């Protein structure tokens, strides 16, 4: 593996000029390093030309570039800051159909005026991923939208750093036109008054201070209700409230209050919100790093006391990322990161790192890119060592251990049993897994009366998937991590 050499002199330049103003342009520069690049260059030019023709995109122009230092000689209006450089070798050896799948969306993006063409591993290490940085999740978004459409209120849950907020933000966009989605992150708010003031600002465009005065005058309940009415009436389609970090807000609310007061405050907020949702006929999606039902239970709120809209939230567990073509998706990330795979590297990454759990995988690729900036090139053996070093140092999977510990505390024997099942799956070759029936029986034997429920919990909590009667890891990276843990702690278990 090495980094892209963006300083190669010669290449083929594809530019998208805006018809109304040629000064507004974006380009792709395919750099060549020698005669071996000619054939792949011809292939990718063919694919691009065909796609451009079939889409009728007459805004593109090709130019041969003998020296990228003399860009202005091609056209003085060329915008060098919106030029994406790729080495032809990065796209060599790809079947034409795959090349088309890879490049057509890029051309569409260029035509739409976007200069960000590929997801970068370090582009959204911790921040919510938007635009090109958002990977996959087509099926989940479609499913969520469908369930909202049929009237379900949803509780989106998944481990930390698995992209819940990103999914909510994408869902907001996805629902445009069919639903009026309102995204609200509550972690910055200390009281319902703060939420009401922000909502009023959102609904009317007013600044915070007048909104706050309004809350002081009319009370948070009234302003919150008015805000949602205003939001609903301003939109022709029904409202969907996307509520992020509700539990954080409740925790903030707890400060200084005794248990009873806190319980009442939480219930009062939920009741009011329920009333408002019903008043404006809105749907609800709740997400967050902390589990809402678990939190409500922990503060002593009886399930029957929870308003029905919140009690009836349908759990939606965000599964590990399943991309249609893992190799193609990995290639997109490598292109966005400037990583140039050498023979066999891409296959190794797909089989070892994959993108099943994007956060640690992207973090690894980002760190790999940083290492390559220093050392220039890494062979497979060194990449493997670097990956193992990363896995030994990373805390990204620690939460799974916590889940196990919590389950073990609630259900004696569960931790050991589930760990042993995971050990068994991890020890099998990747994608082979173990029989689901065996897992159920094993869990039932160890924790009588809980086999089915534990199995469901296991598949929901860990990056696993069901596949033709077998349970397999949905993330090779996690499998490798688990194996390393197993090697270390196997004897202890």
């Amino acid at each position, binding site marked *: 593996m090495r980094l892209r050499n963006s300083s190669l002199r010669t290449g083929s330049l594809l530019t998208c000029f805006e018809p109304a103003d040629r000064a507004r342009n974006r380009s792709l520069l395919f750099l060549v390093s020698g005669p071996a690049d000619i054939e792949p260059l011809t292939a990718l030019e063919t694919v691009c030309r065909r796609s451009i023709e079939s889409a009728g995109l007459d805004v593109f122009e090709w130019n041969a570039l003998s020296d990228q230092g003399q860009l202005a000689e091609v056209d003085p209006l060329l915008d060098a800051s919106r030029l994406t450089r790729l080495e032809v070798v990065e796209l060599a050896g790809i079947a034409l159909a795959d090349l088309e799948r890879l490049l057509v969306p890029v051309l569409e993006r260029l035509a739409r005026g976007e200069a960000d063409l590929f997801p970068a591993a370090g*582009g959204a290490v*911790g921040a919510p991923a938007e635009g090109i940085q958002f990977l996959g999740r087509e099926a989940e978004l479609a499913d969520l939208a469908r369930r909202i459409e049929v009237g379900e209120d949803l509780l989106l849950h998944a481990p930390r750093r698995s992209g819940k907020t990103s999914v909510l933000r994408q869902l907001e966009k996805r629902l445009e036109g069919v639903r009026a989605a309102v995204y609200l*992150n509550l972690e*910055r708010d200390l009281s319902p008054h703060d939420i009401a003031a922000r909502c009023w600002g959102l609904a009317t465009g007013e600044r915070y201070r007048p909104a706050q005065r309004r809350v002081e005058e009319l009370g948070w309940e009234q302003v919150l209700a008015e805000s949602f009415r205003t939001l609903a009436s301003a939109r022709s389609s029904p409202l969907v409230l996307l509520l992020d970090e509700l539990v954080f807000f409740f925790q903030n609310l707890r*400060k200084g209050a005794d248990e009873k007061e806190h319980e009442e405050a939480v219930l009062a907020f939920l009741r009011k919100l329920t009333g408002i949702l019903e008043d404006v006929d809105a749907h609800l999606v709740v997400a967050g790093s902390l589990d809402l039902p678990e939190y409500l239970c922990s503060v002593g709120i009886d399930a029957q006391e929870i308003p029905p809209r919140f009690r009836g939230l349908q759990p939606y567990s965000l599964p590990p990322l399943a991309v249609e073509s893992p190799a193609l998706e990995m290639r997109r990330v490598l292109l966005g990161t400037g990583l140039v795979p050498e023979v066999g590297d891409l296959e190794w990454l797909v089989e070892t790192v994959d993108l099943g759990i994007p956060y640690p995988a992207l973090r690894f690729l980002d760190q790999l890119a940083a290492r390559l900036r220093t050392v220039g090139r890494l062979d497979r053996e060194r990449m493997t060592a670097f990956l193992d070093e990363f896995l*030994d140092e990373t805390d990204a999977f620690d939460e799974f251990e916590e889940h196990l510990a919590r389950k073990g505390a609630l259900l004696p024997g569960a931790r050991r049993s589930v760990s042993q099942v995971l050990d068994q799956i991890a020890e099998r070759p990747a994608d082979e897994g173990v029989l689901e029936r065996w897992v159920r029986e094993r869990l039932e034997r160890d924790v009588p009366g809980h086999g089915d429920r534990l199995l469901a919990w296991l598949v929901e909590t860990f990056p696993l998937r069901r596949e033709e009667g077998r349970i397999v890891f949905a993330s090779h990276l996690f499998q490798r991590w688990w194996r390393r843990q197993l090697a270390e702690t196997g004897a202890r278990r």
Partner: protein
Amino acid sequence: MSSPVLFYNPREASAEVLEAMLVGRDEVVSELEEDLRRQSRSATRQHWLIRGPRGIGKTHLMGILYHRVRQNGALSAAYLPVWLSESEVYEVYSVAILLLGIARQLVEELRNGGDSGASAMEDRIRELEHGGDDPALFEELCEVLREEAGRRGKILLVLMENLDALFSGFAKQRSGQEVRRLRSLLTEEKHFLFLSTTPTRYLAQISDPKAPLYGHLKERTLQTLTEDQVGELFRSLGKVTGQRKRGELLAGSSEEGRLRRRVVHRLAGGNPRSVVMAFSVIAGVPGVKAVVEEMSALLDAQTAYFEARLAQLAPRERAIVAAMALAPNNLTLQEISRLTRLPERSLSTQTDRLIEKGHLAPVEGESGKGTIYELTDGLFRVWYQYRKGRRVLWPIVHFLSIWFSEEELERDLSNLLSEGIRELDLLEGSRTAMAVRHLRKALEWARSEEGKLVRAELWKPTLKRLPKPGKLDIENVISNLEKTTRGLAAHSDPRLAGIGMSMEVLTGSMLAATGREEKAEEFISLATARLMAGAPLSEKTLPQMLHMILLSFDRKWIQTWTALLSIHYPDAAETARLYRLVVEVLEAGDGGGAREGRSAARQRRALARVPPELRRSVEELVAQAKESHRRSREPRGRRAPQQR
């Protein structure tokens, strides 16, 4: 003309000086620049954290980026850079107050850039009436900054140092809320891009998987400079200060230049600020006086930061930190307990808290009894000792004692003392007194056994380039060597015992290097028998023998030798100690189980336990031993030719 500037303050330095002195940071600067370009057109905001110990060049890096963004057309069209002063963060107790600092600095930036909106923005900020803890102030400042950035179609690039101090500034009972508010700022407000730094290796608020900000920042760690980069920095310093000759002293490719470069590199530990200091010290007495003064000023400048960090600690935690700062070595819980008189049983809770707060780090062991702890910020120890009236700055003492010969130190000291007798003004007199104190200590250390050993090790000449091997008949050489050595072994003349031992080690090494392990063992056994019998040892050949044994033989031999040396050869105790430490570090790095990836970390921790003055030597020997071991495991045909 030469400039008297010794240290530089990146905040006050011009963009040109910063660029001229940028060494070894090309990769990270270009990565950050590329990322800024990418983010200028991206919907996602990816915030950054640059880590690295004090003096590694974080502020320099901030300065470089600040100026480049301002000077580059595309970047300045996309960003409004706001470089917060280092002290700004010490006064922050809530995220709203941080935003207030950003807003005020933005007004300054706008005003300096001739932006007509600066006054209006200033008025708007003045009108904000809420308290620093009030969520309303946070919301309103978000609004102000969002609108100001939006009006100009730009992103606010906030360059902020000491992120750790920001977290420490939050009141304990409100810390969680503030961190969450900061998170919402980072994730929701697209008009902000934060580029922050921290000298701490661990920051619970972003490193703990349970923390709200876990994994939110893209991190890079600034590395120490390599030997060649030290030379490059010397050359740059020579140019910047108009002292090209001195700059070339270390930058050149001559044997002497390389040797000096290596010495400075080891003494400075590759830390750029220390290299700058070394540049001044090399000037001799005037430099020593100036450096002592500059370093005192540097320590004074850190007072606000360190005081603020100390103030955050509970009295017992403060006592622990103080004890560690005053101790010459890293400490175990038992030692901390003895020094602080705190009960040992409660110490692990307190040390855990100090680790969480980024003050301490375990250097050996995970935590608890037997674990050795160190202060994470090396400068803190120097500052604390200095503040406690120990007016000797040990980094300077060590440098002086190694760079200059005893004669040079004596001469400088005597000159300074005679200068002190003359009538001098108060300030000059005080400077001289400080320089005298440091020279005196340097001379003391240079005369000590330990000082001599370290100096000899550091100034050991580098191997001269050898001609290409040509048609050397290695088999023949080894065969002759074997014969000669066996001949010597058969000779019972006690005068030849020392030479015989050296030959046996050398022959054994040659045999081991060519894969004849069994025969090699035979020769090292012979040499060891001589050592046990008390064969005379030469001061010069002993380190060479130990070096060969370390590189060529099983580790058990070096263990045997160091043990025997400790018992039979008191004069060689220091050399034996050095190699014993090397073995300890190597052992710490042994796989010891399936989780081999941890071994490197264990080895780092073991190395951290080595006294600072020996650390470089140990580190180098460990690296050589590992490389030698690695090579010996390679199939013979695939081994790359040994580099000379």
